[in-house]
């Protein structure tokens, strides 16, 4: 039930942040609203779970930074740091998956590949992807194998356009680093000695270019719209064009449904801009016309 509390907190925080923005904007009613369809109750409550599965959870740490100096080993066996994949203007899509995972990780990766394939953004160009294994027993060789498979699939999804391995590295790490990263992300997983598998939640993380957690996307399928909006949000407008920014205004992540949905506040913001522009133009035209008229009249009076 902790997740319920966390989600509620996120709503409050979002509302307060938007209210503050609204004060700044002043004009127009720019306020928080999660206008969305009815939400499903948070999963994992009443359903009986095997003891180990109860360890799998996500505690959202939105806005928190991850430690950038955590060291990992990439598919080529080189030592890398998390910070290497951050920086610039590109947001980072981070996936935690282990390479011998029989089911869920593959589903997460496949869902992500499918969503990213439909995205017009180019990986490595407008955004960066990174897979970190949370199984310390995973090797660089396993990472390389998994990477090749995933990238080939993504390339197929992108109509054959090649995807550079640099755009989506797969790394492995030691227990301490993995633990530190998982803690930063609020990703809770547990090892089940009986099956030699991990119980873990299905989610991907979208990080801002400077390494703060911008959005959690849950489940095993990631619609292109949600990915696109999450990337736009994480990049703080640095990725995408003006149209994207207008679209972003109208959508807002809804913690209740865990999807991006139409945001009432966005429509209000657009409406307010519409009102301001219409009435403003009307008044400006009238005042301009009036000044011209008076000038003319003065000139005429001068001639008389």
């Amino acid at each position: 039930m902790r997740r319920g509390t966390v989600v509620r907190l996120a709503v409050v925080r979002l509302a307060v942040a938007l209210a503050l923005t609204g004060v700044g904007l002043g004009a127009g009613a720019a306020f928080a609203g999660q206008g969305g369809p009815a939400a499903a109750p948070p999963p994992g409550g009443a359903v009986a779970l095997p003891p180990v599965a109860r360890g799998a959870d996500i505690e959202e740490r939105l806005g928190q930074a991850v430690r950038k100096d955590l060291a990992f080993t990439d598919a080529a066996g080189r030592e890398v740091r998390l910070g290497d994949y951050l920086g610039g203007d590109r947001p980072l899509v981070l996936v935690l998956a282990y390479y011998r995972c029989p089911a869920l990780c593959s589903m997460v990766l496949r869902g992500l590949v499918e969503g990213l394939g439909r995205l017009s953004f180019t990986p490595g160009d407008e955004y960066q992807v990174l897979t970190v294994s949370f199984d310390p027993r995973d090797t660089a060789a396993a990472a390389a194998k998994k990477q090749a498979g995933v990238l080939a699939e993504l390339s197929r999804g992108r109509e054959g356009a090649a995807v550079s391995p640099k755009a989506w590295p797969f790394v492995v790490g030691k227990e301490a680093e993995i633990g530190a990263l998982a803690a930063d992300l609020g990703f809770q997983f547990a090892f089940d000695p009986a099956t030699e598998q991990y119980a873990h939640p299905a989610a991907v993380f979208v990080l801002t270019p400077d390494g703060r957690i911008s959005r959690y996307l849950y489940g095993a399928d990631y619609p292109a719209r949600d990915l696109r909006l999450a990337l736009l949000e994480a990049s703080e407008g640095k990725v995408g064009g003006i149209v994207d920014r207008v679209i972003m205004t109208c959508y807002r992540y809804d913690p209740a449904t865990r999807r991006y949905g139409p945001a009432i506040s966005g429509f209000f913001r657009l409406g307010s801009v519409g009102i301001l522009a219409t009435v403003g133009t009307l008044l400006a035209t009238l005042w301009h016309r009036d000044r011209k008229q008076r000038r003319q009249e003065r000139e005429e009076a001068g001639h008389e």
Partner: protein
Amino acid sequence: MSHALTGDADLPQEAVGPQETHEVDYLRAEGGVRSWLLTTDHKRIGLMFYGLVVLFLILGGLFAMVLRAELITPEPTLIEADTYNRMFTLHGVIMVWMFMIPSIPNVFGNFVLPLMLGAKDLAFPRLNLLSLYVFALGSVVTLGGAALGGTDTGWTFYAPYSTSTSTAVVPVVAGIFILGVSSIMTGLNFIVTTHTMRARGMSWTRVPLFVWAIYATSVIILFATPVLGMSITLVGIDHVYHFGIFDPRLGGDPVLFQHLFWFYSHPAVYIMILPAMGVISEVVCTFTHKPPASYKAIFISSLGIAFVGFFTWGHHMFVAGMSTFDAGVFGILSMFVAIFSAIKVFTWVATMHRGSIQFSTPMLYFLSFLFLFVFGGMTGVAVATQSLDVHWHDTYFVVAHFHFIMVGATLTGFLAAAHYWFPKMFGCLYSERVGMIGATGVFCGFFLTFFPQFLLGNAGMPRRYYAYPERFQWLNALSSGGAFLLGGALLLTLVNLLVALKRGRRADGNPWTSRSFEWMTPTLPPKHNFAVPPRIGRGPYDYHLTEEEAHARVSPG
């Protein structure tokens, strides 16, 4: 503007006073019901609005009387609790949207604004007629909702209750939406008229202060009313389809509604007050026979209130989960309104200084206005203070405060205008003595009604409650007594004016010896106001000129 500016220069420049024209006045120009219902004459449309808003004032007032009668005793007596809730909702809805907002602009603005500008009508006469019918339609829909059982949300329609109550929310909000459309039409018309229909020679500094007030009001209407339309539509949609836009159980946000609602409804207070302030400016100058102490101070503060009024809405939500920083900002911005208002008050008082004061009914209403407005305004500064608001929020203190400021100001402004322009509108004079008795009664009744409510609120009586502890009874009884006195005084005033219509002495063209331009037309203006478009050669408050000179400088052609 075209007709005022197109070459009338060839006309002989005789000093024919505009009063000497022999056109039939607007009341007799055409006969028959059809000529009224299809008229595009701003004066007749103004009169029809007059009839409607007085009707709604009576209706809203009757509801108030029933409410106050119920509150004389701590226990339920007259009506059921449900009826009580529906009644105070309707009282608020009718008084706000069907009386106070349209009252001064749609009646007196419509009637005198073109006369003051030297125009033959508003810029869009048909739109003006349409706004009357849209207003009537909105009223019918709203009252239809009332007939279907009304709604019990209070006039603020706070979500999520308003989206889940089983009462007739939808027709009422639909009616308010339609009323908003009418409001926008009128506002647009006034703005364009002020810009394009001013007579030749009327520069912006010669525009009467009432016109400035109406102009500022219209700007607020255009900016704010669409937001009300949007938010109230969402309430309606939410009520019917349960989208949960404002319902936290469905991921919505009820505070969002409060923000949206007050973004309109706070400026709406200035939509109500500014026209009253315009009336007051005219009344003060006319009855002291002096120009305003500072013309600029009055019109700039009007525009200032219109502007700052948009940044104060948050003070309604100090206890609805707002950070102390935000609340502080909203509180300070709200206090700016008091600064602009104080500028006005001081200017009016300074105008009286060394004036040749003519004591009359409108002047008496001015004095009531001044008292109620300052009292209401000062308590406004008090409730804009976070720490105090936490104590007074949702108590009778707030009820008393907003009745003082918006009802006190609007009602006394409306009544001052009703008396001041009565000779212009109907060509006859009312009984000054009865008028003054009425004015005194209105003031005493008003004060007696709402002053005890400050004390009640401070003692902790919440607003909108149907029953209360016995220790509050004497103040409540006092308040109810005041309400009946107020109702009686208003009735007396109405009777006085109605009797004057039948039996009043005929007024000459300018019974108050005002210099303002609307009084330069014949006693009852002809259908198109001016036989020849006038040329303005002086300001509206040039009391230093002699009567003849003042007339001569408003010449035809």
